């Protein structure tokens, strides 16, 4: 499986964020997107996720499921957690598990994997920022998708949480997955770096 982008150009609000950008990642490979604030890291992830339309160029996934588009085979972990404060931890996760079409799987087990199994019935409104992040990460585990698009995945996580997440990413890569992460901090695993230029 190979995920690649060619000659990508992104324009937002009339301002060119980046142009002429190429990248590629194959199965089992992690790509760390680095660069200063405003360099377009999030925009690039959203272009890959199909949430932004690039002004030029295209993104392609070769060797994936031919029936499905790239966004349908990708997980997007953005700044916003996609959690409903009124629902409990387990209800939030079960919803995404069912909606994203995960195979029958032990959602409680996914919560245990991110060390949230003690809080399954707590409304998400009472979670701390780090716990919310852990719950979002549990979503990545509950439904299998080959491509993970992560935007500052370790922000708000404590040291134990970061170590735990590195382990989960390793497992995903070992299973032939692709990780593309925008980050300021070292990811903690062997990742190729895609350095984006300064703000124009």
């Amino acid at each position: 499986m190979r995920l690649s982008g060619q000659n990508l150009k992104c324009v937002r609000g009339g301002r060119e964020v980046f142009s002429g950008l190429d990248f590629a990642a194959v199965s089992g490979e992690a790509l760390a997107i680095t660069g200063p604030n405003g360099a377009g890291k999030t925009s690039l992830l959203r272009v890959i996720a199909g949430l932004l339309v690039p002004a030029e160029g295209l993104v392609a996934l070769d060797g994936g499921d031919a029936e499905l588009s790239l966004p349908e085979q990708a997980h997007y972990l953005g700044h916003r957690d996609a959690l409903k404060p009124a629902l409990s931890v387990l209800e939030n996760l079960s919803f995404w598990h069912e909606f994203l079409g995960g195979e029958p799987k032990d959602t409680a087990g996914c919560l245990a994997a991110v060390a949230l199994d003690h809080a399954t019935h707590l409304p998400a409104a009472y979670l701390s920022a780090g716990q919310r992040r852990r719950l979002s990460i549990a979503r990545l585990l509950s439904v299998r998708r080959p491509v993970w698009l992560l935007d500052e995945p370790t922000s708000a996580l404590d040291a134990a949480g970061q170590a735990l997440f590195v382990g989960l990413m390793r497992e995903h890569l070992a299973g032939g997955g692709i990780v593309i992460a925008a980050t300021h901090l070292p990811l903690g695993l062997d990742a190729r770096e895609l350095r984006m230029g300064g703000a124009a």
Partner: protein
Amino acid sequence: MTALGALIRRDIRIALRVGGGALIGVLFFLTVTVLMPFAVGPDLALLSRLGPAILWLGALLASLLTLDRLFTADHEDGSLDLIVMSRTPLELACAAKALAHWLAAGLPLIVATPALGLLLNLDGTATLAVALTLLAGTPALTFTGMIGAALAVTLHRGGLLLAVLVLPLSIPVLIFGVAASQAAISGPVSFGTPFSILCALSLVSLVIGPFAAAASLRHGLD
């Protein structure tokens, strides 16, 4: 199918919990209807003549009040991104969200109608007619309102813009809803004619609404 079921269940659950919009709509409907007799005065004949129109206006404004949050909440917390990316067609997801909204916020209005009919001196037939027209007409309000809600998300303006966009679209529903109720109460037109048109309006909006809302969401995401 399980995906759509999950979406409907989640939206209804959120609407019924603390801070959800379901009860707000009914309370607003109640307030508008209770205030009317004070404004119009104690003329019972006049009240029962205006009754269907008052109930319809109340229901229209109540459904508008809660429609505002249909997509903005999902947009703000990032859920909308995941819904757009998912394997479920966005049109069906929009339809599921509108259906959930109608079940949680529209249906309670219809259930409350008989009680409010009493306050407006409507007899049994009249109340039944209004409830029946609301049952046939409120889906049209929700599904056309959904288009406005989707536009409001992409333009980053909530509330008032929604009202300005949606109210003109709901005029036909209001006209035929009240006309059908009046026809059942006093004639001379048969109840069937305006009622059929009302049903047709609902069916048309059921088809057009999800496509227009999905197109608007897809175009405006950033």
